[in-house]
């Protein structure tokens, strides 16, 4: 039987907690703090790992949906239209290569959205600037909510007790996708979802 990633993480946490941490002298404060952080990170990774690919894919889907929404409503001068065309081309390439690196794909879309927003400052129509601000704010709220749930185990968020388990966050995202009407730009952006 192959040792799974989960088992390897579990044994690393046990070694840290049972052997390494007790062996560090109390006066070695930096070493103790770093060992404690390492143990805590390993525990959090062990919990996140089984859902990490799903979580990354969800982040990519949501930013692609935002990009699709912006492209569908863009109005403005040549610079804004050019940036929107570059973003749309990026989304089409992603459709052709859906299994390419998820994080890199997300970063590329985020950068292209940033370029579109900068261009809209130059010659975008006021209606598009308002719409894009609202859409980005809505997307950021959803992303922050999900990120806070994902990192609640860090113990630093004063409202961490209010957040659902990550399994529930992913289940809610799946329900939200399933309930979107056909023809919705976000649903269209997600048509390649499994």
């Amino acid at each position: 039987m192959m040792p799974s990633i989960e088992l390897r993480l579990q044994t690393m946490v046990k070694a840290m907690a049972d052997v390494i941490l007790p062996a560090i002298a109390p006066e070695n404060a930096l070493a103790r703090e770093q060992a404690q952080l390492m143990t805590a990170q390993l525990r959090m990774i062990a919990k996140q790992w089984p859902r990490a690919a799903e979580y990354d894919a969800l982040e990519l889907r949501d930013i692609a949906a935002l990009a699709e929404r912006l492209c569908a409503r863009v109005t403005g001068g040549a610079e804004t239209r050019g940036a929107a065309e570059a973003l749309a081309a990026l989304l089409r390439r992603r459709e052709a290569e859906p299994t390419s690196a998820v994080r890199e794909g997300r970063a590329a879309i985020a950068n292209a959205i940033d370029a579109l927003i900068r261009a809209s400052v130059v010659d975008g129509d006021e209606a598009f600037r308002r719409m894009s601000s609202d859409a980005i704010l809505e997307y950021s709220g959803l992303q922050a909510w999900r990120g806070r749930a994902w990192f609640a185990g860090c113990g630093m968020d004063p409202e961490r007790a209010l957040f659902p388990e990550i399994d529930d966050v992913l289940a809610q995202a799946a329900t939200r996708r399933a309930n979107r009407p056909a023809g919705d730009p976000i649903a269209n952006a997600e048509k390649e979802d499994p």
Partner: protein
Amino acid sequence: MRRWLRENAPECRDLCLVHADYRMGNFMFDERSGEMTAVLDWELAHIGDFHEDIAYVTQKLFGLVNEKGEFLCCGLFPREEFLVRYQELSGRTIDPQTLRYYQVLNAWKSVVHTFATCVRAAQEGNNHQDILLSWLASVGHVFVAEIVDILGGRTHG
């Protein structure tokens, strides 16, 4: 964000020394008297608007939620009580719109500190606290949520 910050920057009519990282953890006090004895970490200090420090000290990440579900600034005061007491003791008047602006500015700076500076420093491995920086970076989401809340968006799915 940059556009919003430029377009909404308030005029400062009362220039003063701003600490810019004013929060629990950066001041010391005498346990018996409760008197504050020192303020630490002045590397971000500059001349500016006092609202910046007031907004900073009320940020979500630096407080806690008590057993009644009430948010306490720095774990000490309910937000409104803190603002009232500050005005009583300082003689200054807090302008809500200016405070709101500096809440957004501080949260934005904190997003940059966490999602950009912490992550990049940890990636480059040139700090003896890389593991702490990668731990701290995750709280950037709390600051993003604060910006969205203040600007009127949604922070939940």
